[in-house]
């Protein structure tokens, strides 16, 4: 029998990069045996390329939204509850019927599926007898697994790696973690109801628990297992969950919806549970929720509905909110016959596990806080936590983002986009060169904090040795996103120009390869010596955006090329250029991180360069670089490209020390409380400092890294510092002694001890360096220019973030401080900073 490739959809899927693992392997085998299959795959790829190209041309000419539309969206942003599709006038009102809402995805897929399955388990018998019996049987273990998995991520993973933390001093974050424990104990489902309304919460709980009762064995068995892991107190890693480090009553008012440990699931879940479960009680909860969340806007809907759609709408809307009818209505509305409904439910069951897996992986491996999760590190009392530990960070993307928004878009950045450490570290500082064999020098300076003169500001500055003169050979693989979204001059155009710039900087022996991804991943330029410039430039000219993204295959190919041309002792690096929409599919993300971590161990590091201004996945780009021992830079202009790829090429490419951690040991005789400025998502647990398995930041050739601590000296009144409640002394324990009394005499004049740990780029064992710090009592106008400038940037960052700790900061103070500390300002970056502050000042008074 002859083989007919045109009847085999798996060939098409394979050609488009949709197959993985066994499936892909099977097709590869087939291709090897069947020339017709191989030819067909080739044809599909060609067809796909033509299609992608044609569509890209059309997409770039597609219309955008009108100003009216944008205004309507802005209104909705300002007040999501009140906004309505039609509320900016008749031209834009499209006859859309609010009562149809919400369609789908009112909650994340995985949650919806959990809810759907609970629905099947709880109500399936009455609705879809008997076919769904099967789904129900499948559903039970799935739900139980998801619960257990949730619980496990919270309880197990951090505690497993930190078993030794159990005996550590109970710091503020641990105290918070302890508070979290009961949530986990309650069957692992209950934590989902972070509901604001206790009555509603208990209603929902009763449903969740009701379904739990129907499968007692699975659920309780697994949650018990999780429970036994839970008593180990560290439930959350401070590194991934910086916001949990803040005491719950921290003065920052936003209700910090992003604490990853406690997946915030207030209203949407309630709505979804109601929708999908379809039971009377929950549907009522839904209607209550909807009415409340829409508040005063409701009458307007009615009016519009009636006007536009005839009288039917109000009746519809009313029915929708009434108990059981909601379900009937939704079934009818979707116009699906029962069989299709069943199919979807079954499909949901099938996909649940995948999605839950991915979700769990995400939560373990990904910090999904994105822009909005940063809560300023609070002041901590030395009496409670005498160590402060964090990982260095040389990223600079936040500053470039802020610059784009202020200068290019005439608006102040949202607080979450302002990462103060990245702003400070954007600028070069002129610290002392390292001496001897050490890869970097440590420069500490103490003076009064400009925004609160009774506080001290400690500047810790590291300066990496500049090794570019005897730089090892480079083997670079550029992984370029050429998907449709990159098809803009400030994206693919900048990528091309950036690479051109780089080829001029590199030596003839260095090698460059270019891999693109879009549809199927492809090798545009195999690893080529930079000497062959023409070949590289020709390949660059061929870079065109258009088509879909298959980042997963692309990154594998890139790593393969990097490994094939590995230079021992050299610079082996994959450089990802993307607008951040790194589309690898949900299920691939955890394996992507795993791949990056594996390759990091083999010596191939990853740097990410972000392009364009639709950068949705800012946090993802940062995370990938973080996992890959590289930096994340945001290229908003060719000037920035020049900074990253020419002026600071050494720092970008050559790692001179890795896993650099800083720990401060404060002297309780001098320091009452302290606060780390910035580095919110780099905070480490104290015991991680000596744990060489814990990943931390890298420092590149010539890089400077600056960190600031604001210190409340002993004897100064503590304002805005949370003091813990008074606890009785134990009658069994010896009376506690004031810590300050224990400080050895020879150390009593020290403010603190700075401890640094780092590894050589190819080493596995860290080296410790310690530096005692003395406060000579300088005023801030006596400080060095570098110190003043960093303080000015920090102040600016606090203003933009509207930090509760900004003290007397104001734009004029920033301008004054920055103005007098511009210094030699190589590259003109500090002068540009002054302009940005001036512009921000103007914007802030609008």
């Amino acid at each position, binding site marked *: 029998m002859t083989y007919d490739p*045109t009847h085999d*959809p798996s060939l*098409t899927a394979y050609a488009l990069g*949709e197959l993985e693992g066994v499936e892909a392997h099977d097709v590869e085998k087939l291709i090897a045996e069947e*020339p017709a299959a191989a*030819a*067909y795959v080739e*044809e*599909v790829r060609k*067809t796909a390329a*033509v*299609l992608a*190209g*044609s*569509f890209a041309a*059309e997409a770039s000419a*597609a219309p*955008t*939204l009108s100003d009216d*539309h*944008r205004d*309507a*969206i802005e209104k*909705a*942003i*300002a007040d999501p509850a009140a906004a309505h*599709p039609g509320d900016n006038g008749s031209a834009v*009102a*499209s006859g*859309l*019927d609010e009562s*149809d809402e919400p*369609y789908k995805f009112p*909650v*994340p*897929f995985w949650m919806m599926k959990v809810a759907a399955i609970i629905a099947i388990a709880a109500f399936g018998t009455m609705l879809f007898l008997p076919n769904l019996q099967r789904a129900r049987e499948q559903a039970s273990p799935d739900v139980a697994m998801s619960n257990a998995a949730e619980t496990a991520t919270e309880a197990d993973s951090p505690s497993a790696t930190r078993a030794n933390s159990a005996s550590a001093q109970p710091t503020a974050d641990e105290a918070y973690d302890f508070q979290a424990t009961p949530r986990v104990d309650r069957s692992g489902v209950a934590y989902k109801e972070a509901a604001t309304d206790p009555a509603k919460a208990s209603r929902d709980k009763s449903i969740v628990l009701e379904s739990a009762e129907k499968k007692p064995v699975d659920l309780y068995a697994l949650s018990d297992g999780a429970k036994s892991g839970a008593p180990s107190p560290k439930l959350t890693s401070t590194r991934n969950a910086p916001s949990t480090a803040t005491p719950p009553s921290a003065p920052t*008012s*936003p209700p910090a*919806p*992003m604490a990853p440990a406690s997946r*915030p699931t207030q209203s*949407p879940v309630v709505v979804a549970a109601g929708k999908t479960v379809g039971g009377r009680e929950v549907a009522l909860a839904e209607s209550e929720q909807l009415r409340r969340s829409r508040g005063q806007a409701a009458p307007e809907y009615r009016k519009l509905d009636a006007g536009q*759609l005839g009288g039917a709408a109000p009746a519809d809307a009313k029915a929708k909110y009434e108990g059981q009818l909601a379900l009937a209505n939704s079934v009818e509305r979707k116009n699906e016959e029962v069989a299709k409904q069943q199919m979807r439910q079954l499909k949901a069951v099938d996909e649940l596990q995948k999605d839950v897996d991915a979700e769990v992986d*995400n939560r373990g491996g990904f910090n*999904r806080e994105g822009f*909005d999760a940063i809560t300023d590190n609070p002041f901590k009392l030395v009496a409670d936590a005498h160590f402060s530990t964090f990982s260095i960070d040389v990223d600079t993307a936040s500053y470039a983002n802020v610059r784009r928004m202020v200068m290019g878009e005439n608006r102040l*950045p*949202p*607080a*979450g*986009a302002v990462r103060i450490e990245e702003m400070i570290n954007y600028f070069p500082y002129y610290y002392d060169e390292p001496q001897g064999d050490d890869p970097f020098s440590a420069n500490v300076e103490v003076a009064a904090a400009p925004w609160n003169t009774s506080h001290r500001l400690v500047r810790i500055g590291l300066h990496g040795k500049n090794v570019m003169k005897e730089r090892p050979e480079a083997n670079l693989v550029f992984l370029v996103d050429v998907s449709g*979204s990159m098809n803009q001059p400030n994206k693919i155009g900048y990528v091309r120009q950036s690479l051109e710039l780089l080829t001029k900087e590199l030596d003839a022996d260095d090698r460059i390869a270019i891999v693109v991804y879009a*549809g199927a991943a492809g090798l545009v330029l195999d690893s080529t010596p930079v000497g062959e410039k023409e070949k590289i430039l020709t390949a660059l000219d061929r870079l065109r955006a258009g*088509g*879909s993204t298959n980042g997963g295959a692309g990154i594998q190919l890139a790593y393969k090329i990097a490994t094939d041309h590995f230079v021992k002792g050299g610079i082996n690096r994959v450089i990802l250029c993307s607008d951040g*929409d790194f589309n690898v*599919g949900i299920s691939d993300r955890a394996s992507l991180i795993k791949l990056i971590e594996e390759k990091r161990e083999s010596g191939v590091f990853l740097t990410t360069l972000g392009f364009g*201004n*639709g950068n*949705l996945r800012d946090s993802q780009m940062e995370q990938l670089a973080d996992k890959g021992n590289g930096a994340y830079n945001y290229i908003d202009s060719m000037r920035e490209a020049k900074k990253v790829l020419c002026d600071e090429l050494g720092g970008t490419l050559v790692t001179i020390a890795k896993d650099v951690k800083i720990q401060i040991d404060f002297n309780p005789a001098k320091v009452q409380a302290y606060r780390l400025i910035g580095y919110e998502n780099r905070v480490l647990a104290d015991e991680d400092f000596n744990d060489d398995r814990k990943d931390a930041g890298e420092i590149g050739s010539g890089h400077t890294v600056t960190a600031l601590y604001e210190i409340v000296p002993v004897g100064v009144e503590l304002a805005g510092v949370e003091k813990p409640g008074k606890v009785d002394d134990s009658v069994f324990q010896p009376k506690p002694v004031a810590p300050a009394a224990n400080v050895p005499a020879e150390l009593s004049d020290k403010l603190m001890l700075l401890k640094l740990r780092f590894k050589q780029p190819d080493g596995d064992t860290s080296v410790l360096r310690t530096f005692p710090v003395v406060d000579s009592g300088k005023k801030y106008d006596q400080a060095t220019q570098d110190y003043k400038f960093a303080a000015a940037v920090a102040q600016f960052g606090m203003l933009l973030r509207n930090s509760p700790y900004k003290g007397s900061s104001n734009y004029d103070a920033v301008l004054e401080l920055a103005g007098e500390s511009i210094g030699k300002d190589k590259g003109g970056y500090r002068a540009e900073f002054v302009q940005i502050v001036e512009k921000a000042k103007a914007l802030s008074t609008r």
Partner: protein
Amino acid sequence: MSDAQAVDGQWIRDAVDRYERPLVLYASRMLHDEHRAADVVQDVFVRLCRQSKEDVDDHLQAWLFSVCRNRALDVIRKEKRMKPMTEHHLRNGTSESPDPADRAEDRDASSRVLDLVDDLPDKQAEVVRLKFQHGLSYREIAKVTEMSVSNVGYVLHTAIATLRQQMDPDLDRATTAQ
């Protein structure tokens, strides 16, 4: 405006910048009317404002396309202008295949390919666009169109086979002759 609101707003503005064109394009294919498409897309983003960023962040693209599709279907349903999904277009498609003389004209190549796509049955055309214009994976397309993943694979396979033949009828003869 509080910080939290400012922050929320920004991710939505970013989403608008990133997805407005693709969504308008997608919706106008369904509605055959750019203005109505833009209205639908505005509505999609207004709805997005009611979502918590975290809840949609890891499947934002699928969420947007899915909501966009449903809103567009609503409009069609209300206006009873839904095109019947028949094989009609497929059968007529070949007769509209372009004159070979045009083929050398690079200028028209893109628009000709687009015509071919538009001549596919609606379902196929939609899946082809989601895949090659908007870069969705099979799984995302499955979620948006409420088909199974394997069905997406089949539809896309069929569509590509058709397009491939129409783009170059000689091609097929060549491969089968081997």
